[in-house]
């Protein structure tokens, strides 16, 4: 990326020369006039200069997330959640925000390739035709399709068509981050695979057996919303969350009682929990189990036990059983038929395919998306087997590791470039509509599949539309079609809850603990695999935003690492950035060490998705490839890991190096008990509004302010990347992050410190505080940092000369400086710049301005029809995206505004109030809800 030359090298020398030439000629030569190219025929419904929003959906592993995509003069620029969509309710996670950059990624493949040579669709088509005749004869013997999770009704229809035509063809599924365990667990309990749908808003007690339902599970954005709804101290009662997990997740950080255990120990722990819940509570030695069991017993029908995708089926079955016993089925958890079509076992499905290829039963393999060569289990032998397929067609966005070993590669159209449809975690279907014609000649998946069945003419639009016309039948199909596109959901498509029979009782009595729960050797080191919070399984590796978005629990960017507890690090005598060699079975991998507080002892965690070798200029060569150690039988955790310290170091790019509060009242936190006892518990001496020498500046019609609720914030980082997308914030690259020059306008600080009676992970989103007595403005010599009449501390980029005094004088250090020409260097995001926001040049300061462009747009539209702005009419990017609605923004002059109400709360406090900077951004103290009468710090206690 932006590695600086130690001294003048050729590149910088050229820069230097050109610069001096520019200086020389600058005065005389002038840029030409700006051209304006008019439309020949203007698209209907478009107003020049005004953005349009289109409802569609984005999928991961098949699960759809409804979104609204902003389009400026035909250019998709920003993704917002779709309030009408159950998985979104107007919010998105961090990953969805990155998808817009994926769309514009200049490294996407642009041409059809055959054996590494550029080739044409015609040639491929003729090949398919010739094969087609053979398949006619042998019923598609030797035709195989490998896909991930698929939830597109149209595509499924096409599959049925294909299988009717070629009955002997086979379709295989493989998702590296799959839900095999969930389906197996459901089979064990209900005799058939079912998809659990949780209702966290109805659950008062939640026990998560390593289920990252705030950051990972399908529907996690919706779940986060429901979960946080149940945690408003002002309601004088909060739900309580118990989490046991190996690698700390944001779900664990949100827990009231968190327990760190190796993944392999969780089964036995679950059994103990079951025993304690069904039997005598006091029996168990572990406070965490005692307390959780007691709570569960007291909350029949209002509690919820759920197991994570990483946990074996038995644990899922156990969870179903407990919910059954506690009468939660139908109350806090329901089951629906699988919304996503996938294999009962991705592992077996892939293995079967490999088997067939080995024995030469496969002559044509079509890989729909995905990257099995990179992310299939290392012992599956996919790579070797692939060679035996005479024709292998990779169909995907990127010319990646897999396509390099396929005979053909066909560029796919991005989800935002094509017509399709997709199903959400709860069965709700969305019809996806294209925002723009394929940028790089990509092909819609529907057309690819149609081609296989000999249909080379139908377009994705016709295929999707025809399917739905068929579904709608004759009740105003046109209207319904239009409505679906407008609202972003197909009405009445949400799945009906299956009325299952009671979950089979699995051994739940205390005696069984010994039977199944064979606790592994406590000294044995275990290796856990987890999807990367920003790169997932590696499919987003080339999205610079997601590479540079700090991972919530580690604050690392651009790399993964071997995460371990401090205790293990000391035992291994390693520190951060030491390189160790991990040995699992006979396979080894070198990885840098990164110590993560609250990580289970005697365990290591690797995030999947790094160490790509053919991801593109952005994604290649960052981090280590965890798949190199991931086997079919140990997809989520493997025991018996040997760790060897090598005497080499690897520099990691973290955005935060210090995690102690140093006794400073930066984050205020208390328990619900504290709050009920004294709602003012967060107040401190220093909070009293100190007197000022200066008279208050009179307020204009609006006075903008913001309130951030630390009780709701789960630290997912969606705000950071949403802000990046909205405000044209360039990425700076690993070396610059190391140098301490990341540009995020709103960052999520993470502290590991004692709060509310326990060592806790504390998150604090920090945008600009918009101080009324702004220290930054006082010291700016050129009036580049000044206040506007509505109280926003604005940064006038075109006036800034870059003294950086404002940054020094900002106690919150929210100001960001363009030390180099980051916007120029960041080729990726140039195409999707927000036309409403200035692109900052080198040498100017920048920072959060409450999404000024949105404020102004709102004010102008209100003034235009001569009315006052309504509360909620102006929404900042971070506020809009926040899954838990922790961020509230609005007009402080409006007595009925939401933000006024929030600031009225007794939990309100000012960050560094003693400096009397009078911020317009304030915080609501964090409140947790540990079981009363106990000190939660025992949680980590002996077993």
């Amino acid at each position, binding site marked *: 990326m932006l590695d600086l030359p130690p001294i003048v090298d050729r590149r910088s020398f050229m820069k230097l020369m050109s610069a001096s030439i520019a200086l020389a000629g600058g005065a005389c030569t002038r840029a030409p006039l700006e051209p304006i190219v008019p439309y020949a025929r203007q698209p209907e419904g478009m107003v020049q200069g005004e953005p349009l929003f289109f409802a569609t959906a984005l999928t991961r592993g098949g699960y759809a997330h409804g979104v609204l995509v902003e389009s400026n003069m035909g250019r998709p620029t920003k993704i917002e959640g779709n309030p009408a969509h159950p998985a979104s309710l107007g919010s998105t996670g961090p990953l969805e925000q990155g998808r817009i950059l994926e769309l514009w990624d200049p490294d996407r493949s642009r041409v059809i390739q055959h054996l590494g040579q550029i080739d044409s669709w015609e040639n491929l088509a003729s090949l398919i035709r010739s094969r087609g005749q053979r398949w006619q004869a042998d019923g598609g013997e030797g035709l195989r399709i490998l896909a991930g999770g698929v939830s597109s009704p149209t595509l499924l229809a096409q599959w049925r068509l294909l299988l009717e035509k070629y009955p002997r063809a086979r379709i295989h599924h493989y998702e590296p981050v799959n839900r095999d365990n969930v389906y197996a667990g459901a089979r064990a309990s209900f005799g058939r695979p079912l998809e659990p749908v949780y209702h966290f808003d109805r659950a008062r007690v939640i026990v998560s057996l390593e289920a990252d339902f705030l950051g990972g599970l399908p529907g996690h954005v919706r779940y986060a919303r429901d979960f946080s709804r149940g945690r408003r101290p002002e309601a004088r009662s909060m739900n309580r969350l118990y989490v046991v997990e190996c690698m700390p997740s944001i779900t664990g950080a949100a827990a009231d009682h968190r327990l760190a255990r190796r993944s392999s120990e969780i089964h036995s722990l679950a059994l103990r929990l079951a025993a304690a819940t069904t039997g005598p509570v006091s029996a168990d030695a572990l406070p965490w189990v005692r307390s959780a069991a007691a709570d569960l017993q007291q909350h029949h029908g209002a509690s919820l036990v759920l197991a994570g995708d990483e946990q074996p089926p038995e644990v899922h079955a156990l969870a179903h059983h407990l919910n059954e016993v506690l009468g939660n089925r139908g109350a806090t958890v329901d089951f629906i038929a699988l919304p996503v079509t996938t294999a009962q076992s991705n592992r077996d499905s892939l293995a079967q395919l490999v088997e067939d290829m080995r024995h030469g039963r496969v002559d044509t393999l079509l890989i729909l998306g995905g990257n099995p060569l990179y992310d299939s289990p290392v012992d599956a032998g996919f790579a070797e087997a692939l060679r035996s397929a005479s024709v292998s067609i990779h169909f995907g966005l990127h010319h990646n590791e897999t396509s390099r070993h396929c005979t053909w590669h066909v560029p796919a159209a991005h989800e935002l470039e094509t017509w399709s449809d997709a199903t959400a975690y709860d069965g709700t279907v969305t019809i996806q509509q294209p925002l723009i014609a394929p940028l790089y000649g990509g092909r819609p998946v529907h057309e690819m599949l149609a081609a296989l069945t000999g249909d080379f003419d139908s377009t994705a639009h016709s295929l999707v539309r025809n399917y739905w016309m068929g579904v709608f039948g004759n009740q105003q199909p046109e209207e319904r079609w239009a409505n679906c596109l407008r609202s972003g959901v197909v009405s009445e498509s949400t799945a009906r809850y299956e009325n299952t029979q009671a979950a089979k009782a699995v051994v739940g009595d205390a005696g069984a603990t010994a039977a199944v729960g064979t606790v592994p050797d406590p000294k044995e080191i275990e290796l856990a695999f987890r999807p990367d919070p920003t790169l997932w399984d590696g499919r987003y590796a080339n999205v610079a935003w997601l590479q540079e978005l700090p991972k919530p629990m580690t604050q690392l960017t651009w790399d993964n690492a071997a995460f371990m507890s401090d205790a293990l690090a000391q035992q291994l005598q390693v520190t951060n950035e030491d390189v160790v060699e991990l040995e699992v079975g006979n396979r080894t991998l070198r990885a840098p060490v990164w110590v993560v507080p609250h990580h289970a002892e005697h365990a290591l965690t690797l995030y999947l998705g790094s160490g790509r070798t053919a991801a593109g200029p952005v994604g290649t060569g960052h981090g280590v490839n965890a798949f190199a150690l991931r086997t079919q039988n140990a997809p989520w955790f493997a025991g018996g890991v040997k760790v060897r310290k090598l005497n080499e170091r690897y520099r990691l790019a973290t955005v935060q190096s210090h995690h102690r509060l140093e006794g400073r009242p930066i984050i205020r936190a208390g328990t619900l008990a504290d709050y009920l006892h004294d709602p003012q518990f967060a107040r401190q001496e220093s909070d009293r509004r100190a007197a*000022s020498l*200066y*008279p*208050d*500046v009179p307020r204009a019609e609006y006075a903008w302010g913001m309130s951030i609720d630390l009780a709701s914030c789960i630290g997912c980082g969606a705000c950071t990347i949403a802000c990046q997308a909205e405000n044209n914030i360039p990425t700076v690259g690993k070396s610059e992050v190391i140098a301490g020059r990341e540009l995020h306008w709103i960052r999520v600080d993470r502290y590991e410190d004692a709060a509310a009676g326990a060592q806790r992970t504390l998150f604090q989103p920090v945008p600009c505080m918009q101080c*009324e*007595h*702004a*220290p*930054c*403005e*006082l010291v*700016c010599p050129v*009036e580049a940092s*000044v*206040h*506007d*009449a509505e109280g926003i501390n604005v940064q006038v980029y075109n006036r800034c000369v870059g003294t950086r005094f404002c940054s020094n004088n900002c106690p919150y250090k929210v100001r960001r400086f363009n030390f180099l020409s980051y916007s120029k260097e960041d080729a990726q995001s140039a195409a999707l710049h927000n036309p409403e926001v200035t692109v900052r040049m080198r040498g100017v300061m920048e920072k959060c301005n409450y999404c000024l462009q949105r404020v102004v747009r709102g004010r102008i539209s209100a003034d235009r029809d001569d009315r006052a702005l309504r509360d909620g009419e102006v929404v900042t990017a971070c506020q809009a995206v926040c899954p838990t609605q922790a961020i509230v923004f609005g007009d402080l002059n409006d007595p009925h505004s939401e933000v006024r109400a929030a600031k009225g709360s007794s939990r309100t406090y000012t960050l560094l109030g003693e400096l009397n900077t*009078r911020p317009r951004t304030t915080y609501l103290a964090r409140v947790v809800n540990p079981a009363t009468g106990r000190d939660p710090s025992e949680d980590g206690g002996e077993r």
Partner: protein
Amino acid sequence: MSWYGITAEFGHAEALLDAVRATRGQGYRRVEAYTPFSVEGLPEALDLPPDRVALVTLLGGIAGGAGAFFLQWYSAVIDYPINSGGRPLNSWPAFIPAVFELAVLGAALAGFFGMLALNGLPRLRHPIFNTPDFHLASRNRFFLCVRSDDPLFDLEKTEAWLRTLSPVTLARTPVGAKP
């Protein structure tokens, strides 16, 4: 040939001082002295009027300071009032440093250039430079010149008088450059 005056050269300051006093005692008024450094008592001996440099300097200082304050007040309060850090528009305490600095600057500039102006400098050509040996005036010699426009000036008489002061040399200083 017209003369600027008659110039006597002396070896040291006291000699010059004595000569100046004596010459003025003779009633000569247009008497000039040239020395390699500022000689104590010479201005008094020549009965020079008080210089007005101090006054000029004072005025320069006042102008600088007042100008500075007006500039700041006008630009911050009248021309483009902007809320900067919630401070009052007329933050006069914050204006003081610039006022002080510009006052000093104004005074210094006025003083220096005032001095030059009052001295009629720069003036690269001057008849006195036509005096033989005058280049020593910047080294170790002291010169006394009775200008020809002095009412009592008379080429012979004055020359005679000056000779009585036993100068190192005595010369007539022509107005035009040496041939």
